[in-house]
């Protein structure tokens, strides 16, 4: 554990990617196979099953530290990370430990079936022989969420450096539904022929956002354009008569979408399609919100299947007749895809992502502006000759999103941020005018620079009207331009609307409070854009 904790500290102490790769590679090289495999698992979001709930951990930590629970909770809010808050609060250790990372993971797993009192005594015993960083790591192992600035991509680079196996091969071997309990470092990482696992998806190729116009991309005839849909990126696999649906988060979601199950028979073996899972009814997409609600449900009922049916809008073919097509140009893959979907056997759950025809970039500008009419988020631009790469890469695929909707609103409440911004006021509530009253309608906590947050924090300190716990009401004085991606009706909010992805676009210091937008303006937007 000490070595892993050291690694944690070193990774945490640098923002430089190359240094992180080097540190991680050096650690992996020196670690034994069990610790290596667990490290790879943890850094690809495969943590051991949670065996103690966080409510208990909070209670035990507060008790051990001799502070009331409410004070622990407030401290946690400031720190922003429960593992860290516990590690910072616990009293000094009474001993040392020399156990390995895998030892502690097994220790945590063994807590599963125990009585609460026994769990407590074991967790406390563990804390008492760990220093600050070891406790932090131990808590994170229990709770998951190992976000230490090491992406899976970075981990793969380090693993490649340590094993000499190339990154794409490793990324593929690491996909799918494995856990360190059921495999070994040797089998998973070092052994060839990963296709034995028929469910294994390909790493998704992710597009970067196009910040400027497309003119810089070169000749329009080298590119295709498609609509960008607001659904869930998905990969649909049929191999050996079985169907698997993967979401971009590398989650196997086959059970969530019974609509796709007949495809196991309708598509030939050795087919892998990349596309967007979209809620879709009566010939048009529903709002993403509907899909989110559906996914949140534990059981997929008949009612929900009728209310929010889904389709897969297919835009790429990654495997055909068992052959990996990713090195083929997009144009070729798309031809095969069109042929496949054109066949009579293809299900109506599979739609082809239509091309948006254009010969000049200007024509696309127009299409992008009109994106909301199609309930789409903008356009995707892909190079005809592009191969299918792994992860987020610049160059061949771009998303070109429609400009957000905006509204000018008045800040009325402020709350301290946590974690990264614990000493600044960063969480604000905004209101619009309804006659002479200000009606709150959204919160937002991103979009300003640190400098602006500092400025507003100092203003909040001096202009607080009232305090309600961590929230302060402030004089209605500042107007912000709020950007958002969508708007829908809400019965839960006083304003009657809920926004999607609200954030602060600009601090409108030039604008007097009286000139902020009105509730009526919001409701007009609702009429135009709800969907």
């Amino acid at each position, binding site marked *: 554990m000490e070595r892993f904790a050291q690694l944690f500290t070193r990774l945490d102490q640098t923002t430089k990617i190359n240094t992180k790769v080097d540190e991680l590679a050096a650690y992996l090289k020196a670690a034994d196979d069990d610790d290596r495999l667990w490290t790879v698992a943890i850094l690809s979001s495969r943590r051991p099953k949670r065996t103690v709930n966080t409510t208990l951990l909070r209670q035990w930590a507060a008790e051990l530290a001799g502070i009331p629970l409410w004070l622990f909770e407030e401290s946690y809010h*400031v720190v922003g990370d429960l593992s860290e808050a516990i590690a910072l609060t616990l009293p000094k250790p009474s001993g040392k430990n020399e156990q390995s990372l895998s030892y502690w993971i097994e220790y945590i797993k063994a807590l599963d079936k125990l009585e609460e009192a026994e769990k407590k005594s074991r967790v406390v015993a563990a804390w008492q022989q760990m220093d600050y960083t070891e406790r932090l790591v131990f808590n994170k192992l229990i709770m998951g969420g190992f976000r230490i600035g090491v992406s899976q991509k970075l981990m793969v680079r380090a693993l490649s450096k340590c094993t000499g196996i190339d990154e794409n091969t490793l990324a593929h071997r690491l996909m799918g539904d494995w856990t360190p309990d059921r495999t070994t470092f040797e089998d998973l990482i070092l052994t060839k022929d990963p296709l034995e696992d028929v469910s294994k998806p390909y790493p998704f190729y992710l597009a970067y956002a196009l910040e400027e116009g497309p003119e810089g991309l070169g000749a329009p005839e080298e590119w295709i354009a498609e609509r960008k849909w607001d659904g869930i990126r998905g990969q649909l696999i049929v191999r050996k008569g079985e169907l698997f649906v993967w979401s971009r988060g590398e989650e196997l979601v086959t059970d969530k979408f019974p609509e796709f199950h007949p495809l196991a028979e309708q598509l030939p073996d050795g087919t892998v399609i990349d596309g967007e899972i979209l809620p879709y009814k009566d010939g048009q997409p529903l709002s993403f919100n509907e899909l989110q609600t559906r996914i949140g449900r534990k059981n997929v009922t008949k009612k929900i299947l009728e209310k929010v049916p889904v389709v897969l809008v297919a835009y790429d073919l990654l495997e055909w007749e068992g052959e990996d097509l990713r090195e083929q140009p997009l144009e070729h893959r798309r031809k095969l895809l069109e042929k496949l979907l054109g066949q009579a056997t293809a299900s109506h759950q599979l739609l082809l992502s239509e091309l948006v025809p254009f010969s000049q970039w200007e024509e696309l500008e127009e299409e992008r502006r009109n994106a909301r009419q199609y309930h789409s988020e903008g356009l995707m631009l892909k190079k005809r000759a592009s191969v299918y790469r792994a992860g987020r890469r610049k160059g061949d695929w771009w998303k070109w999103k429609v400009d957000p909707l905006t509204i000018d609103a008045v800040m009325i409440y402020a709350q301290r941020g946590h974690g990264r911004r614990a*000493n600044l006021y960063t969480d604000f509530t905004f209101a619009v005018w309804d006659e002479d009253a200000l009606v709150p309608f959204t919160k937002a906590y991103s979009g300003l620079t640190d400098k602006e947050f500092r400025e507003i924090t100092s203003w909040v300190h001096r202009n607080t009207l009232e305090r309600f716990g961590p929230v302060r009401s402030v004089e209605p004085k500042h107007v912000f331009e709020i950007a958002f991606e969508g708007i829908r009706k809400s019965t839960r909010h006083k304003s009657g609307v809920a926004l999607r992805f609200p954030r602060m676009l600009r601090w409108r210091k030039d604008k007097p409070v009286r000139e902020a937008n009105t509730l009526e303006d919001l409701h007009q937007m609702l009429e135009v854009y709800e969907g």
Partner: protein
Amino acid sequence: MALLEFTEKGIYCAAAGVYIDPWRPVDRALITHGHADHSRWGHKHYLFTRSAAPVIRHRLGNIRHDTVEYGEVTRINGVSFSFHPAGHIVGSAQIRVEHKGEVWVASGDYKVEDDGLSEAFEPVRCHTFITESTFGLPVYRWKQQKKVFTQINEWWKQNQADGKASIIGVYALGKAQRVLAGVDSSIGPIHTHGAIENTNEVMRRQGITLPKTTRITREVKAADLEGSLVLATPSATGSNWMKRFKKASVGIASGWMALRGTRRRRSADRGFVLSDHADWTGLNEAITATGAERVVVTHGYTNLFARYLREERGLDAWEAQTEYEGESLDKDDDSED
């Protein structure tokens, strides 16, 4: 009427007609220390300790003032005022106020660990204690400064071996001199940002010993800075001023570095947890040592700390609105405000 009140202008003693650390211009101000949120411009007359005088006069220029020694009693309208070491920075004081047998102490900013440079904190018995709470949560517990300086020395040596400058962001008044006094100056040369060197010069003139430092001017070459320890103001670490360094590692020394999140926000390479404010343990010990039954909590996590003192320690504690700012990561003029 209470002996001390919190008014729109500052902490007011009606019986004497004077203010402690006022934030609006007043006739007579008693000042705990030289940071800008406590010693502001524009009062008609100032009173502070003799060792706080040089930096305050350096900042505020030609002001009407008197100085006192620690422990010396000044009587104003029958009220006795005396200044006692707060351990925050050189010359910093808690101000004891006594009238008709009632004693209040306004502590300004303080820390209980002796930093070897400031006059060490002395607990003062009182009925009512006015305390800060900049780090008034149990997650803030400092390591001994010796350990922190070992970390800084190791970091400096490693950077030196890698041919890098070690740039550390610190306040010009207080933290800068504490770091100078604490590091192992035999490791290599030490360079300073101009704002810091100005304060160093003021302190050296008042007889405080600091290691040799070189002011960074246009004449200083990039090669001179290699392997050097560089003290910079927090804002300089994010500015064009940094362009002069070819290879550098950037550290920040502040109590806020106790939280990983704050360090990431500043995107510093290293965060050193070093504060001139009391940590959770220090605040609680200091309050105990005063024997006070009433505690007024000024800046920081005021509502939480006051609630803790009421509910868990049975003290009559409440929070007061002030314009003190404690340790900020984001400002630096010549102070820690």
